[in-house]
C-alpha cells in the first residue's frame, strides 16, 4: 500500500549546519506516528521541509506517492495536509469562532464565490461542532488573543482539524497544556483518528503522551533517524537513551 506521506533522503543545511541529514520514513493511512528526539535534533526543521515552509537541500517528499517537494504550504493544505506549530499560532484579534471559520474557508468553493457568498462561508455549524468538541463553548465569541495558553493550544489544534484533513502534523501539541486539557486533547486526537481515519505525525517531548497515543515512534538525533518501531521498543533502545543522556 502506498504510504500517505513518505520522506526520501531529506537533507536541509543552514550555512554548513546539517539540521536534517538524510531522513527517510513513511507514514501509512490511519497511523499515529510519534517523532521524538533531543532539543535541536532537527524535528521542527523536518516538519518545515515536509510542509513546504522550507525547501529541502536534497531529497523528496511524497504525498500518496506523488512528489510534492517544495510545494507551497497553502497548496499542500488544500490537498488535505494540515499542521500545528510549536509556538502558538492563532489570530489574536479574531474571535475563537472566526479563527475556526478562517481555518476552513479556503476549502469552500472558489475565491470569487467566497467573496459573493455567505460571510461565514457556511462554516458556522462546523465551527460550533469543533468548539464543542474541544470544550471552548464559553469562549466562542472571545478574542483568541485573550485566551489562556492552554486554551489557545486547543484552539490551534482545533483549527488544524477544521477542514477535515487526511494528514495532520502536530508540533509539540502538549507543550504548556495542563493535565486535564492534555487528557482532553489526547481523546480528541484519538477520536479524529478512529472516526475520521485521519493520519497523524506528532512531535512531542512529553513521553507519557507519546507512548499512550502513538502506534509507532521514530527517534531523531543530529538530523538522522536512529530508531523506528513500537513505542516501548524505541523508549528502551540503548541508542535512544544515549542520544538523550549524551555521550
Amino acid at each position, binding site marked *: 500500500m502506498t504510504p500517505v506521506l513518505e520522506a526520501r533522503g531529506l537533507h536541509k543545511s543552514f550555512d554548513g549546519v546539517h539540521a536534517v541529514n538524510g531522513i527517510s520514513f513513511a507514514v501509512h493511512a490511519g497511523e499515529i506516528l510519534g517523532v521524538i528526539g533531543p532539543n535541536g535534533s532537527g524535528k521542527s526543521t523536518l516538519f518545515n521541509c515536509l*510542509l513546504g*515552509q522550507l525547501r529541502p537541500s536534497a531529497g523528496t517528499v511524497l504525498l500518496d506517492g506523488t512528489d510534492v517537494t517544495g510545494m*507551497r*504550504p*497553502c497548496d499542500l*493544505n*488544500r490537498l488535505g495536509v*494540515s*499542521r500545528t*506549530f510549536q509556538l502558538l*499560532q*492563532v*489570530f*489574536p*484579534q*479574531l*474571535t475563537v469562532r*472566526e479563527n475556526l*471559520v*478562517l*481555518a476552513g*474557508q*479556503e*476549502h*469552500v468553493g472558489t*475565491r470569487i464565490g*467566497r*467573496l*459573493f*457568498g455567505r*460571510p461565514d*462561508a457556511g462554516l458556522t455549524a462546523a465551527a460550533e461542532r469543533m468548539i464543542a468538541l474541544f470544550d471552548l463553548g464559553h469562549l466562542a465569541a472571545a*478574542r483568541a488573543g485573550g485566551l489562556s495558553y492552554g486554551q489557545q493550544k486547543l484552539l490551534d489544534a482545533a*483549527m488544524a482539524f*477544521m*477542514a477535515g484533513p487526511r494528514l495532520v502534523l502536530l508540533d509539540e501539541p502538549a507543550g504548556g497544556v495542563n493535565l486535564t486539557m492534555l487528557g482532553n486533547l489526547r481523546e480528541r486526537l484519538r477520536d479524529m483518528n478512529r472516526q475520521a481515519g485521519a493520519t497523524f505525525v506528532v512531535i512531542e517531548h512529553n513521553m507519557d503522551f507519546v507512548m499512550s497515543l502513538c502506534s509507532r515512534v521514530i527517534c531523531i538525533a543530529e538530523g538522522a533517524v536512529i530508531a523506528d518501531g513500537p513505542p516501548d521498543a524505541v523508549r528502551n533502545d540503548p541508542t535512544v537513551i544515549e542520544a538523550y543522556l549524551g555521550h
Partner: protein
Amino acid sequence: MMARASAGGLVAAVLLVVLAGALGFALQPYGIYLLSLWAVYTIAAIGLNLTLGFAGQMSLAQAAFVGIGAYCTALLDARGIPFPATLAIAVLLTFGVGWCVGYPALRVQGHYLAFVTLGLTTLVYLVMRNETWLTGGIGGVSNIARPWPFAHNLAYLHLCLAALLAVAAAMWWMLRSPWGRAFVALRENPVRAMSLGVDVRRYTLLAFAIGAALGGIAGAFYAPLVQYIEPSPFALGFSINLLMMVVIGGAGYFLGPFLGALVAVLLPEWLRFLQDEYLIIYAVAVILLLLFCPTGLLGLAERALARGRARGTAKAAAPVAAP
C-alpha cells in the same frame, strides 16, 4: 473588539453620508467644496485602510494612485472621452499598477516596504512633472469638465457622496466576507494563514490592487472637482497625509477613514486663525493622540465604551457582593 464590519458600522456610514448631503443645501460654495473633498479623501483613505489597516501592508504609495486616477481622468476628458469610461479606465489602470506594487511586499515588509512604496510615489510624481508631452508638466491640465448633469457644485457633491456610499458598501461587504478574514489573517500571522490554505501571495497582491483602485476612484472624482490639476498635490506629502487619516481615524476600523478624513479636512479650517502655527498644533495633536492611543480615535472610543461597560457591570454586581 469591534467587529470588522458590523451592521452598525454600515448604518453609521450611511448616516454620515446622508448628513453630509443634507448639509450641502445649507452651505456656501466653499463649504460644499470641503464636503466634496472629504468624500474624495475618504474614498482614498478607505483604500489605504484596506491595504494598511486590515491587510497590514505598509504603503506610502496611495497619493500616487490618486494622482494616476486624477491624471487619467483629466487627460482622457481632454480627448472627449465621457466620465464613466474614464472612471473605469482609471480603476483598471490603478488596479494593475497596485497589483505590480504588491510584488515587493511579497519580499519585504514594514519599514522596507514603506521605502519601496515611497519610491513609487516619487517616481509617479516625477513622471507627472517632467513628462510634459503627456501630463503638461508643472503647467498641469486645466478645464476639466464635470460630467453632465453634475456641473453644479451641489450636484457634484452629491455625486461624490454617492460614489463614497457605493465604495463604503462594497468595502463593508468584502470585509464581512471570507476575504476580509483572510486580509486580517495576513496582518496577524501570514505563516499560520498559509498553513491553513490561505494563498498569502494572492491576497497580498489583492490588498494592494484593491486599495490602489480605490485611490484611483478618488483621483477620478478629484480632478473634475477642482477642475485643474498639477503634480504637487500628489507628492509624498499627500501619501503621508492619507496615512495620517487612516491612523488618526483608527487603522483597521471600518469607520476610521471617515473620521480621519474629516479631521484632515476640517482641522486646517478651524485652525486657520493660527496661520502658520497651524501645522505645529496639528502635529502636536497627532503626536499626543498616537502616544495615548495608537489605535486612533475609534480605538479611543472603543476603550471608553469598554470602561463604561465594565463600570456598569461592577455597579450591577455591587449589591450582590455587599453583605
